[in-house]
């Protein structure tokens, strides 16, 4: 990247748990050569620039809070590329279980992944995605390697994925080869391989979709246009 200007990257959290922020911070030392990250953890005052090359958005959008929706639309205008980082922003994740009713704001009932409100270019699910995920994303992004980014690109059009989808699409259809990638990737230990086939402990699944995109078969299904919206 010698001689090139650093990518201007903005991070915005619109209502998550901050776990993804920590992941981004942890990824940053190795990304410093190529990107300049504007993150609230490290700056004074508001955003540094008016326009950015990439915006990393974390957290789901509260549909009952117009302010958050407007903020999100504002980010879309500011950034050339939007990356939904983490399962809440990408697929809804744990926020898919929200149903409101809680003081002091019982009206905050509905949370959606950000692609319900704005157009998203890439989605990186995970709860949280590891710092290495972000590092490889930027590596391929800066190299313009569309093949490697394809999975993130198609995931950007998907609104929900979970262990249930994995079982439905891969195990019940007989496509599972028993590689165990789902068990290793599950952030809650909900998936266990029994007789070389994943078994889902349903009560532990938080609908983050990590297993689905890590599964070599399931990721092919969505990359080939196997209709998950």
């Amino acid at each position, binding site marked *: 990247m010698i001689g090139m200007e650093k990518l201007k990257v903005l991070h915005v959290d619109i209502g998550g748990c901050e776990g993804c922020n*920590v992941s981004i911070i942890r990824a940053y030392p190795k990304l410093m050569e190529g990107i300049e990250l504007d993150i609230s*953890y490290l700056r004074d*005052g508001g955003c540094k620039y008016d326009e950015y090359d990439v915006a990393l958005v974390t957290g789901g959008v509260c549909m009952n809070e117009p302010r958050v929706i407007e903020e999100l639309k504002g980010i879309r205008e500011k950034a050339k590329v939007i990356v939904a980082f983490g399962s809440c922003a990408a697929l809804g994740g*744990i926020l898919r279980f929200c149903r409101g*009713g809680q003081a*002091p704001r019982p009206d905050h009932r509905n949370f959606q992944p950000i692609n319900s409100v704005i157009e998203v270019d890439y989605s990186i699910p995970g709860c*949280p995605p590891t710092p290495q995920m972000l590092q490889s994303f930027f590596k391929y992004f800066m190299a313009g390697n569309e093949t490697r980014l394809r999975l993130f690109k198609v995931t950007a059009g998907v609104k929900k994925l979970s262990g249930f989808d994995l079982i439905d699409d891969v195990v019940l259809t007989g496509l599972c080869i028993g590689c165990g990638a789902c068990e290793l990737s599950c952030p809650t230990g909900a998936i266990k391989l029994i007789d070389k086939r994943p078994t889902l402990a349903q009560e532990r699944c938080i609908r983050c979709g990590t297993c689905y995109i890590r599964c070599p078969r399931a990721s092919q299904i969505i990359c080939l246009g196997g209709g998950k919206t």
Partner: protein
Amino acid sequence: MGEVRLDRVCRVAGEAKLILYEEDGTVQDALFIATAPVRGFEKMVVGKNPLFAVEAVMRICGLCHASHGIAAVEAVEHAIGIAPPRNGLLMREALGLINRAQSHALQFLMMAGDLIREEKRNEVLFKLMDFHAKVSDYLLKLGGAATHPPNLTIGGMLRVPKWSVFNNLKARFPDLMKSWEELREVLLDEDVQTEVADELREARREMPYLASSFFYGDRYNIRTDAVETMPYYEFRKEEPARESTTLIAFYDGKKVEAGPRARMKTYREFRDSSLYGIHLARVLDTELAILRLGEILDEIDMNEAFRVKNITFGPGRGVGVYEAPRGTLIHYLELGEEGRVVSSRIVVPTMFNIPVMEEMAKGLSVKAAEAVMRLYDPCIPCTTHVVRMR
């Protein structure tokens, strides 16, 4: 009286506004208004299996994930009358302490902009990131992930790392310690600190403290029924406060400070009563957490069990109290006939601290008052996910 309004306080965990009312540059009053949406975790877990509840509440906060996990499993275990074996408890304590060190490291990172002079700041930030990476690796190996550790579960550990992992972590411990010692040097080096740090050193003020234990948490050391909560907008009647999405808490009807200084004052000989003392207490808190982690690694007996057998979920009520990085965290839980969650209420340390922060800011300069907000390390994702108690 002049008004200073910060629409988005930077370098805190989450979204918040700060309004300072000042006269001749001295802050007379402060409003700390958290505005993050309420995700409603206490309502989300109702009707669900307790195992889901534990995974879910860990996701309230990405900074103190293990702390929420521990308070929740303690509450479930209290409700169904089980306790993990010694190994399980030690491992749980270790996960919590690693989480404490992780969270404090991030607070130092956010606080560096206030306390450390600009020319030295980047060096400190790099050291902090390095230390955070090292300590997070301990959570990855022991807990199964560096954030939201899945091995933490009801009755003990879901998966037990291999003995070789323990040996590896023990072998790397001196390196972790060394990295911390270097960091401690710069965090406490008064020669590289700002004027804000000096002002905080001069400002001596204290409030009653709340702490239940030093390393872990003890439901019998505090009166869990003496905690009252109310929405922030009922506590502060000013117009801008209506936007707030948080609740705040009082112990025994009083404002109490929770966190590292409260633990140090209650359980250790700690004399510093200045606001800078909170920073000092946090540094000591991190150090003692790491040292205790080293002890625990030596105490684990690989031949013994890590989880209780025969876990049966049934009706019951339980309280889990844990000393999270920011202070006393309380989970109240009720399970119904099938052992599913009937009600859950969570009181987080920032709820106690918000009224204290506002009080402490009085009499300071505007810059120092803003720094005080960060000094208490408010965790907004946590505070906006809690329900009102009756």
